[in-house]
């Protein structure tokens, strides 16, 4: 066999030619952090015990002025922007809709269905308007620079103007166009069984359809990411989109595990003789 063969396949051990340079010593690479005494001491500490996954209950947060009471004919309105700035919840001291709810994502969707929502869309930059009970949830384009303090004042002006005219919150055409509760319930149950729950089962989560009141949907979320707020928001957005694709007439979708869902924490009394559906 030629001499090069031996060099290649035997490593050349003991067969180095006279005068040839010895192989260089291999550099031993080691992370110096591993040898740090403080790091080693930290690693030696016992690890905290892991919590077992269990059902997580969302608490009801009590608002400081939850006992505010409506006073006569004066319309009292509060606004509370969301932390991410994308939406603002407007609380009115009287119910706008009792069992029904309305959700519109454009001026054209509100046209002919809700004069109040149409008026709010005229503000500009508004992406959606949801009306349920005594609250209006407004989302807007994230690039709108106006503060929610200013926008909510404009919304309040339009609400007061609407009440001043005695106009309906939603039209008869909107109400008559809603499917029956049973139909909504059946269609959403199919979505839950075939699409939603199989999708979130990998996260040990599931949702159940608690009940349907008119076109307002109440769900119960269970398991999931153990109360992690960020994942809950993402999860809900996906679920709500699936629901609305199946039944476009669905209004508010509320999670009953959030005990304050659907309630107005600031105004609790109802003026005598007030009708919700004007």
């Amino acid at each position, binding site marked *: 066999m030629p001499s090069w063969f031996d060099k290649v396949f035997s490593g050349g051990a003991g067969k180095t030619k006279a005068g040839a340079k010895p192989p260089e010593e291999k550099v031993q690479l080691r992370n110096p952090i591993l040898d740090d005494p403080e790091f080693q001491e930290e690693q030696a500490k016992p690890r905290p015990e892991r919590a077992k996954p269990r059902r997580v*209950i969302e*608490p009801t947060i009590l*608002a400081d002025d939850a006992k505010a009471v409506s006073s006569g004919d004066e319309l*009292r*309105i509060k606004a509370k922007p969301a*932390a991410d700035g994308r939406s603002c919840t407007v609380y009115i001291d009287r119910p706008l809709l009792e069992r029904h709810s309305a959700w519109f994502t454009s001026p054209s969707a509100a046209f002919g269905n809700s004069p109040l929502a149409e008026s709010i869309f005229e503000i500009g930059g508004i992406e959606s308007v949801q009306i349920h009970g005594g609250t209006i949830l407004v989302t807007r384009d994230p690039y709108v620079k106006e503060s929610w*303090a200013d926008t909510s004042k404009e919304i309040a002006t339009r609400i007061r103007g609407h009440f001043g005219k005695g106009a309906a919150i939603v039209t008869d055409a909107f109400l008559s166009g809603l499917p029956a509760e049973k139909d909504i319930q059946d269609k959403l149950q199919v979505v839950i069984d075939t699409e939603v729950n199989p999708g979130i089962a990998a996260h040990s989560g599931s949702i159940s359809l608690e009940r349907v009141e008119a076109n307002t949907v109440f769900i119960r979320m269970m398991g999931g990411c*153990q109360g992690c*707020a960020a994942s809950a928001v993402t999860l809900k957005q996906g679920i709500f989109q699936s629901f609305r694709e199946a039944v476009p007439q669905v209004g508010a979708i509320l999670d009953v595990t959030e005990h304050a869902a659907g309630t107005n924490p600031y105004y609790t009394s109802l003026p005598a003789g007030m009708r919700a559906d004007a």
Partner: protein
Amino acid sequence: MPKLQQFDVKLKTGASGRSTVPRYSINGFLLDFEHTGGGTGPGEEFQALGNPDSFPHTLLLIGPDDGAWDIADISITYHCAGEPPYSLRFAGVTLDGESDLNIWQTRPQPAFDV
């Protein structure tokens, strides 16, 4: 996300209490409260300090291993790094051998009259 250095818990037990000292979990890790006072028997008040000094993705009050624990009222003061503390009150809730309570809440946004 703020770094939660400490939080103070004050809770009042309702009709049904628990015999073991409550614990909490942060990001899935179980930890003991510090400087505990009072008790968790029926009608008793319990105060404790949680000292996670970490960024909470989840912060849970662990329910009892068995039986029901009726919590009538909870008040928590959160101390986050670089921010003034804020307090929240939660409505009553009942925990059992299969449930925990989410007690992580970011600073609430103020509501204002318009």
